[in-house]
């Protein structure tokens, strides 16, 4: 008998720990009480479930028995104190009473600590259960007393005192449970907020790093670097003075790119400089097929904007507008202050909207990167829009800008 009981307990204990670790195992528990219990455990939120698992693993086996014994001792001491405080209660009665209140209280505190959500969520249900218990208790006591022949007049007074005792007991258990539940809920909400903020910060940092990595990758793209070096080689072999000029522009471009990669914001003047060196390099390579113009008003030179955005748009204009166009075209880059905003426009006279290519296999087009970066920095306050330039394409970036 004893062996069966301990076996059953060990089995149930292992099942319960397994469900805490892997909630999907709940469905495998034997039907009835154990299934119901396992499903309750499985429904707990992850964090509480893991806390409960850690708690259960800590208070297992011998440790559990020692703890229970220690609690029994503490409650018994409380009972003895109660006996000395109120002589009317016999010391045996007091000890039994203290343990009878103490153990449910301990159990309630533990369940409130780990499953406070359900207690708060179903507080009305719990209140009804408590009232129901009180009523049932009263009826039982009344029935027992009536059966044992207590006179009807004496019944009322005894019942009131029974009710009082029960109410005190409920309060002793209920109030700490509610207090603990509310406290734990607050604590967990604060933790959730903190975790969420940390996750968001980590995500932002990662996305920023990724977008800068993409910038780096764009610069060391074999097409750009090798074709440019090929052009340098050819010019150098011909002994053309343009070789030195092209190399100079390439150096400017690479140096500005490195600077962009290290910082998050850059002045419009610096970014226009980067774009100019890029376009000069491309002009040597593409010859007559590329013409370009840059318009940056003096007043806007020191306006800050996120790195990479302007260059990506210009690269896109070259890659998808000018290079595929049989006769090439002109790229115009301009900045203009609007009311409360700044508009940066990249216009190309290339092949235009109808032949926008499919997104590249790796990580989407540059435009997606730009949109993403704008959202990271400005939220909904900035935008990137494409219009048909007829011929070619116009890309407009609008960012917030307070006029000085």
């Amino acid at each position: 008998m004893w062996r069966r009981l301990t076996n059953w307990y060990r089995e149930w204990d292992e099942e319960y720990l397994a469900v805490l670790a892997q909630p999907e195992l709940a469905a495998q528990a034997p039907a009835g009480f154990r299934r119901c219990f396992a499903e309750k455990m499985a429904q707990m939120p992850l964090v509480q479930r893991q806390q409960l698992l850690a708690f259960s693993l800590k208070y297992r086996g011998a440790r559990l028995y020692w703890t229970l014994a220690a609690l029994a001792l503490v409650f018994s001491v409380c009972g003895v104190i109660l006996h000395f405080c109120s002589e009317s209660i016999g010391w045996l009665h007091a000890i039994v009473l203290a343990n009878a209140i103490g153990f449910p209280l301990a159990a309630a505190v533990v369940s409130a600590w780990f499953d406070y959500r359900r207690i708060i969520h179903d507080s009305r249900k719990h209140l009804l259960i408590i009232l129901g218990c009180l009523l049932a208790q009263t009826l039982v006591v009344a029935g027992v007393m009536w059966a044992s022949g207590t006179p009807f007049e004496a019944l009322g007074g005894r019942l009131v005192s029974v009710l009082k005792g029960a109410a005190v007991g409920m309060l002793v258990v209920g109030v700490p449970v509610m207090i603990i539940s509310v406290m734990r809920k607050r604590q967990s909400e604060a933790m959730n907020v903190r975790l969420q903020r940390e996750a968001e910060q980590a995500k932002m940092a990662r996305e920023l790093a990724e977008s800068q990595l993409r910038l780096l990758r764009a610069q060391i793209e074999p097409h750009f670097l090798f074709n440019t070096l090929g052009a340098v080689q050819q010019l150098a072999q011909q002994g053309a003075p343009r070789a030195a000029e092209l190399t100079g522009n390439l150096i400017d471009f690479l140096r500005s790119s490195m600077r962009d990669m290290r910082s998050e914001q850059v002045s419009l003047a610096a970014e226009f400089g980067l774009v100019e060196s890029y376009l000069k390099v491309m002009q040597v390579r593409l010859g007559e097929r590329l013409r370009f113009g840059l318009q940056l008003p003096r007043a806007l030179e020191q306006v800050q904007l996120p790195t990479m955005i302007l260059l990506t748009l210009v690269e896109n204009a070259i890659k998808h507008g000018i290079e595929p166009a049989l006769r090439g075209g002109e790229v115009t880059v301009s900045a203009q202050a609007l009311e409360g905003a700044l508009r940066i426009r990249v216009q190309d006279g290339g092949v235009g909207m109808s032949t926008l290519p499919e997104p590249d296999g790796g990580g989407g087009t540059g435009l997606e990167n730009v949109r993403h970066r704008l959202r990271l920095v400005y939220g909904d306050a900035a935008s990137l829009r494409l219009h048909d330039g007829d011929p070619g394409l116009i890309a407009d970036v609008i960012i917030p800008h307070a006029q000085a």
Partner: protein
Amino acid sequence: MQPTVLIAEDEPLMRERLLELLAQCWPEARVVLVAENGNDAWDGFLEHEPDVAFLDIRMPGLSGLEVAERIGSMAQVVFVTAYDQYAVDAFDAGAVDYLLKPVQVERLERALARLKAKLAQPPSDGAAMGELLRYLKTALPGMRQERSKWIKASVGRQVRVIDVDEVLFFQSDTRYTRIVLRDYEALVRTPLKDLLGTLDPERFWQIHRATVVNVNAILAAERIDAERMQVLVKGSAEKLAVSRTFVHLFRE
């Protein structure tokens, strides 16, 4: 016999470099055409029928891959590309060679040695080439021009928007293209070689350097003599000549 060569490359300095290197490493070859884009390359190929084509992969108009696809086994193709090793590993398995940009002398010499060996052999059936091109098209995205559904053309003083499906055939008229439909014909200012890339090659067959015909409009192809054929078109009295290059389209 002096081998003939076509070069297609959109960047001027790269063109010059390849020309100079070829003159240095393969002086007996004769460069018959230097094209700046894919459309000119294919048009020039039909005109000159060279033995070897050096094609840049990324070019305006038809891409190098599309030109190679049209050339098939009619010539030896060498791709010139800035794509790195991972993308071009496939070349090693195929019948063609590739050169990484910027082209270096030693590598070009090796490619030329292989090329000369190939030129001495009878031409292959081009099956390996087809396989390779299919692979490259999936490996190198964004290379295909968009197909147009509509063509704007002037008819007298009107501008008409023509559904390409209704076109019977296109015919090159120097710098213009004549578009023939069932009820009328129109002229567009775009040369045929530039229209070609925007037409679906499955539905519009090029049968001559100057003629592209809608497959659905073909009534019959008839033999004139051992080498020449002509195409009869539904809804048109004109007979369209099929050049020797394209006779294979009508072999049973």
